């Protein structure tokens, strides 16, 4: 009997169906649909999708989170999430957030960088940084993502040309590009070491590890030594990694079998695997707060701030909540950032605007059931005796979040800027960059919010009215002799980390050296931006300063730690803000520069609050003019009367 083609097709289809249902490993959408966690006793796979078998072979390829987790989860979808699209330039940026800050004590550079289009930040390409260099510097606190994991075999496609295109997009004069430091040649294959370092994959465990065995510190160490591909396996503790990719030359060819032994080696801890080569992964669906803290910690670096044991935790956490209770997302990891007016696609389309302070704590008129107000047991705010204008003018965080404002702002350090969470010797409160808080800033939405702030410091070129930073390489090369890097002294270890302020002469020397490095065909002026002003050489060869938008501060809203009602500003006294010396209006905002050449301009909180200052000036000016005009008219009237009386008297 011969089987028809139709019967053969049917049998094949049935067999295929059983095959897929029987193996999670072969299915990318395998589900439990239970609130009970799934026990992740699973096989692991390398970046090429090959199953790793430590029970058979101790040494092997490093496991790939993408290849392993994608067996059951849609990793491509996850990679579109908020944290993982940090390197994407075509994602809606949303409200300004914390930038990555390129800090170089030698050149006194501190420049906010971001791939997102946050006004006031620069694209990494503005400093001549490639994606790989960016990953090398900041991968310690980057979870990875598509832009950092798709370059593995594309060294030949120069990211630099793309960088140049982006640079031009931002209205930076083309002439500045010609000054050097952004040349395609400098960014060619020589700096594209993706083929050696491997990809910086999105490491799921950095958030979803259910225990503290996962070592973000070890992961950071791997990345710092260019072991991108080996970072997840080392951090997970499944294996130890020997050797560093940084030791391999640029022309190293990993496909050359004869030299492959020079790559870092992965030695699996076989006792962690069963006979089937499966390992237990302690995975939690909702990341623990401590995992969030790795990237989102702040540390008070100001002596006037109380030590940690005196400080209260965020009131939400003390109430038993967790970060992800508000900062939620679906499988696409489109995370709710939790601010009013947030929009987005995917799961964010559902959560945006429903997980804000206001949504949970303030009853809204016309709200339909189920109301968001009071959800999760949130106490409803009555704000008794508080004029409604406060709710219209201020973000909730102004009164409820951050450090209590003082006569001046406080210096703080953040995980992303100061590599908090990584064990380092000689951590110092004076470590750059200098971030200050709380600063009460009028935001784009018209409300005043409480922010952290940094004043950019960089060497650049001025062409026409525009100032743009110069490439790192060019600055380093030009200033190699002009600037001395801060030196450690036995007497004062503190001096090692802080900025060593530049004096007028040093700045002048450096500007001359920088100017000399410019292409003569370009009419441009070397400038140094720091402390809220730009410095340049005058005709006499000394340093002058001038104001310029490029020297303006960059700030981003802070939301935590949240203080409860009793500890909020104004809870007891209106004069917390409405007083002649209130920190909210008249506290000093630190303008931390890196020079002694010119005193940093003093700035007050009210200077950051836009409309108040305008109103204040407008009304004050109106009254001054009222005095002048009124008195002028009255005195003229008096004089005319006197003269007329004299004239009449002389006639009689």
């Amino acid at each position, binding site marked *: 009997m011969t089987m028809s083609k139709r019967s053969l097709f049917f049998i094949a289809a049935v067999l295929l169906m059983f095959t897929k249902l029987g193996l999670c490993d072969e299915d990318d959408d395998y589900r439990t649909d239970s609130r009970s966690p799934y026990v992740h006793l699973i096989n692991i796979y390398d970046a090429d999708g090959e199953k790793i078998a430590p029970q058979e072979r101790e040494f092997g390829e490093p496991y790939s989170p993408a290849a392993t987790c994608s067996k059951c989860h849609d990793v491509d979808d996850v990679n579109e999430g908020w944290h993982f699209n940090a390197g994407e330039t075509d994602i809606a940026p949303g409200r300004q957030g914390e930038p990555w800050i390129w800090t170089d004590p030698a050149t006194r550079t501190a420049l906010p960088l971001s791939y997102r289009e946050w006004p006031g930040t620069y694209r990494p390409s503005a400093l001549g940084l490639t994606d790989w260099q960016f990953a090398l510097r900041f991968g310690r606190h980057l979870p990875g993502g598509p832009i950092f994991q798709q370059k593995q075999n594309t060294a030949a496609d120069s990211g630099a040309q793309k960088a140049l295109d982006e640079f031009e997009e931002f209205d930076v004069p083309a002439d500045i590009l010609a000054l050097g430091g952004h040349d395609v040649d400098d960014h060619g294959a020589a700096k594209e070491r993706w083929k050696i370092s491997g990809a910086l994959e999105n490491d799921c465990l950095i958030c979803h590890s259910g225990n503290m065995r996962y070592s973000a510190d070890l992961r950071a160490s791997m990345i710092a030594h260019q072991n991108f591909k080996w970072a997840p396996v080392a951090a997970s503790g499944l294996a130890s990694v020997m050797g560093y990719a940084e030791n391999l030359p640029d022309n190293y060819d990993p496909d050359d079998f004869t030299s492959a032994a020079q790559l870092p080696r992965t030695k699996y801890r076989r006792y962690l695997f069963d006979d089937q080569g499966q390992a237990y992964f302690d995975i939690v669906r909702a990341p623990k707060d401590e995992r969030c803290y790795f990237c989102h910690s702040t540390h008070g670096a100001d002596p006037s701030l109380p030590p940690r044991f005196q400080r209260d935790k965020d009131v939400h956490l003390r109430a038993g909540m967790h970060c992800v209770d508000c900062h939620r997302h679906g499988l696409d990891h489109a995370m709710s950032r939790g601010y009013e007016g947030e929009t987005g696609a995917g799961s964010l389309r559902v959560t945006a605007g429903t997980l804000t302070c206001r949504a949970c704590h303030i009853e809204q008129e016309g709200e339909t059931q189920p109301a968001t107000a009071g959800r999760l047991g949130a106490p409803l705010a009555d704000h008794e005796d508080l004029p409604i204008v406060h709710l219209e003018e201020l973000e909730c965080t102004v009164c409820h979040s951050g450090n209590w404002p003082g006569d001046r702002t406080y210096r703080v350090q953040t995980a992303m800027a100061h590599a908090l969470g990584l064990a380092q010797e000689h951590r110092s409160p004076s470590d750059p960059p200098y971030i200050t808080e709380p600063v009460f800033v009028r935001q784009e939405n018209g409300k005043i919010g409480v922010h952290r702030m940094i004043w950019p410091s960089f060497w650049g070129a001025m062409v026409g009215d525009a100032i743009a930073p110069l490439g790192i390489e060019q600055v380093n090369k030009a200033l190699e002799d002009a600037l001395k890097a801060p030196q450690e002294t036995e007497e004062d270890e503190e001096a090692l980390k802080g900025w060593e302020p530049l004096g007028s002469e040093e700045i002048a020397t450096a500007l001359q050296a920088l100017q000399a490095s410019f292409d003569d065909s370009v009419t441009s002026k070397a400038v140094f931006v720091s402390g809220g002003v730009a410095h340049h050489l005058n005709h006499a060869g000394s340093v002058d300063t001038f104001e310029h938008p490029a020297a303006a501060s960059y700030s981003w809203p802070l939301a935590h730690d949240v203080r409860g009602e009793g500890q909020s500003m104004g809870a007891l*006294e209106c004069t917390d803000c409405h007083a002649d010396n209130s920190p909210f209006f008249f506290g000093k905002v630190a303008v931390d520069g890196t020079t002694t050449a010119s005193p940093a301009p003093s700035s007050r909180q009210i200077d950051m609050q836009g409309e108040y200052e305008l109103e204040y000036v407008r009304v004050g000016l109106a009254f001054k003019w009222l005095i002048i005009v009124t008195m002028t008219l*009255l005195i003229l009237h008096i004089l005319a009367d006197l003269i007329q009386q004299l004239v009449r008297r002389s006639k009689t």
Partner: protein
Amino acid sequence: MSASYEKPEMAQRFSLQYRIQHLVLLLAVLTLIFTGAFLWFMGRPELFWWSQDFEGIDAIRVIHRIAASALIAVSLYHTLFTIFTREGRREFWLLLPRWKDVADVTQNSMYFLGLREERPKFGRYTYYEKFDYWAVYWGCVIMIGTGLVLWFDQLAASVAPWLPYRLAAEVHADEAVLATLALFVWHFYNVHFNPKKFPGSLTWLHGKIPLGELKADHPLEYESMLQEKDEAESPETGKKH
């Protein structure tokens, strides 16, 4: 207020009510000016070094607030007097700005410039006397309003957050300067330093004005008085009274 003709050389211009109100206003404003200036100096030790060693600021502030209370009281009393008494309503009606005042300003300016032989004929209140009156109204509203914000800052922050303390302080100081200048330059010229009045009119004390001055400065008022007098002395009209 009705004028008296018992003494032909003098006419009654202001009643005791207005003289007392003016006296309280005078004392309160002068006290406020001197103590207020002192408080302003005290708040600027960088400009006035001596203020750092002065320990009586609290006493000065108390005096300032007592005078402020007197100003508020007389303002309220004047308002109530204006609303609830026939005399008050009549005077207020006469003090309201009119188109004639605009014409008077124009004609008086022409007179000053030698383009007109005669001054305009003023009524009971000249335009510059009306200015004096309404300037006090304006000044009281501004000074009392902003002063209350400075005095009761907690309450003010609650009920008037649109007027922040700093702005109130700035406006209070500016308006004080304007009021002080207007008082010592303008008002003092009109009642003291004007050669026709020097060394000063005593109307504020006895409420009377010489008939000659009334005739010269307020001819319409003078004519009105004569007409009233004639009507009062007429047997026919007298019956009406």
